[in-house]
């Protein structure tokens, strides 16, 4: 076994699917485009050839019924992964995800559970405009009964997919296509990254930069830049948006006393707002200066690349935010 094997983020997902489908016959993959790289990149490569059409199910364009079918199969003892190659189309499936899957265990008094993975891919940039660019993690994180994970590294992409498949509850797995080509260390063996656990990506003492998914990498670049100015930034990768790892978040903020939150979703009622609310409720006395959110503006995604450049926050946005926090 290679210890420092590198793998692309998308292939880390692929490896998780291969390994779980091999070890557990109740795991199957269903969704539009699972046999087409045009839809799912190389995340599903080799699965159809290996596991056949009964367990790698390319579907008609019927997000509502297909997601419902995955939920129903989960209720009847299977462990489906249903993929939405563009998370925007997952909105057609709000009923099976929210009304049914999320509520099922509770409203049936724990008599049944829904071990389904609902996988939605964010596809931003490239002038794809408002309906092909959305980052909808906050919508799902709002719902009791769902878990929501957003891996930022290849290691977590594999480990969280495995953990999501093994989980007895509905897990919304959100990856960002901008991360798919990212390379990183990925062990070959089957391993899980615990759902509900954040991680410190870089230690620092002056400010906490809590970030999700792609924004973690912007935060890392920001931390490099800030270090050149003598500012020691701590980068916290949230990893699981729900349930959120309050303990690690609060420990970091209590240490640094300052907080910038970077999330690739919208500002109002978003993940960043939730993180700030937790800190204000539970660590108010430790906060030395106002907190700042780095998010999308409350605006639909534009097409024009001229507008995209100002629409998507980058590491510079985080640097600015940190400087603002430190100067007030």
């Amino acid at each position, binding site marked *: 076994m290679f210890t420092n094997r590198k793998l692309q983020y998308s292939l880390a997902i692929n490896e998780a699917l291969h390994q779980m489908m091999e070890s557990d016959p*109740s795991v*199957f993959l*269903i969704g539009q485009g699972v046999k087409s790289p045009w839809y799912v990149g190389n995340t599903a490569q080799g699965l159809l050839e290996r596991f056949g059409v*009964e*367990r790698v*199910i390319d*579907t*008609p364009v*019927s997000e*509502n*019924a*297909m*997601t*419902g*079918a*995955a*939920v*129903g*199969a*989960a*209720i*009847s*003892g*299977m462990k*489906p992964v249903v993929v939405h190659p563009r998370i925007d189309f997952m909105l057609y499936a709000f*009923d*099976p995800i929210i*009304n*049914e899957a999320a509520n*099922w*265990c*509770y*409203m*049936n*008094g*724990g*008599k*049944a*559970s829904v071990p389904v993975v609902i996988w939605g891919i964010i596809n931003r940039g490239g002038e794809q405009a408002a309906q092909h660019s959305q980052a909808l993690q906050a919508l799902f994180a709002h719902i*009791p*009964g769902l*878990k929501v994970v957003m891996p930022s590294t290849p290691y977590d992409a594999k480990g969280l997919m495995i953990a999501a498949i093994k989980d*007895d*509850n509905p897990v919304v797995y959100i990856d960002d296509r901008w991360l798919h080509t990212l390379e990183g260390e990925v062990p070959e063996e089957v391993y899980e990254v615990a759902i509900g656990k954040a991680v410190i990506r870089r230690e620092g003492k002056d400010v906490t930069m809590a970030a999700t998914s792609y924004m973690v990498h912007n935060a890392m670049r920001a931390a490099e830049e800030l270090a050149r100015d003598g500012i020691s930034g701590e980068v916290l990768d949230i990893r699981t948006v729900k349930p959120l790892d309050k303990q690690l978040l609060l420990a970091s903020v209590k240490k640094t006393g300052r907080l910038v939150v970077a999330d690739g979703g919208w500002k109002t009622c978003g993940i960043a707002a939730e993180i700030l609310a937790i800190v204000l409720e539970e660590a108010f006395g430790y906060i030395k200066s106002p907190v700042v959110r780095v998010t999308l503006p409350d605006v639909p995604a534009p097409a024009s690349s001229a507008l995209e450049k100002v629409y998507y926050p980058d590491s510079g946005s985080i640097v600015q935010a940190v400087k603002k926090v430190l100067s007030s």
Partner: protein
Amino acid sequence: MKRYPKNFLRKLYKTMIRMRFCEESLVEPILNGEVGCPVHLYSGEEAIAAGICASLKETDYIFGNHRSHGHFLAKGGSMNELAAEIYCKETGCSRGRGGSMHLIDPDVGMLGSAPIVAGTISLALGAALAASIRKDNRVVVSFFGDGATGEGVLYESLNFSALKKLPIVFACENNLYATHMPIQECRVRNNIYKIGEPFCIESHEIDGNDVLQVYEAGREAIDKCRKGEGPVFLEFLTYRFRGHVGPDDNIQGTHTDIRPKEEMESWLKKDPIKRFERYLLSNNMLDEQVLDIITQEAEKEVITAHSFAKNSPFPDKKELNRYVYKQEASV
């Protein structure tokens, strides 16, 4: 005339009588406030659940909707647990977290019910997909009403089930009303069974108040599904004897029904239980004594169920958070 074994007829009659008595026994507790959750009574439609479930094995699956007391009982759910759930008690089939609209008993293949119109059709589709992947020879029945034919997910599910030849029976209970809306205000023509045809799904229109016709159609459909020749779409014409929710439609406290009086009277004459009784007696298949015994047993069962429900505790306030997620240790 086809001769059925007496035991079979007795069981079919008993299933229907248990449903009717159970439903009618809820009228008083609803009116006096002892039952508080929304209750959609199945009186008048008993032949459908009874007739179909008579051909299902315990391992087969069904999913229901908001009006599913009958489905739950016909599939083998316990009346005690049903009543306790309607009273929202800890001993209910959903531990008081679901109420009348969320009935489940996985041990007998009743996989759940939900009031989002058409909400469980795709879940039943998934259960059929699971059966087909596992090749476990199970059949799934999806019960839904005429109102659900207005929802797009039904057509997505019909297409996919036909494409994959899934073992699922789509059982549409057409009681002519989607809540307050008569079917002629919802559809251009009252010919729901034809919606299966564009998907090349075998489809039939059945008199849903004739339990033996329901049974025959259900048996054939279920057999086909079990042989891999599914799906099948069945439309059952029927009528609810009570309001959409509660004993009557109770518009602004009037306790009246919104439906035309003549229409209601004509359907009351087609009461599926009375029709079955007439058939059994006039053809000397079961005698009155047998029917009386079944009736008395059902009455007793209903009384026991209410007393079990009323004497059961409410869920513990300390357990408000329990069951949001499945925890390894808690089930």
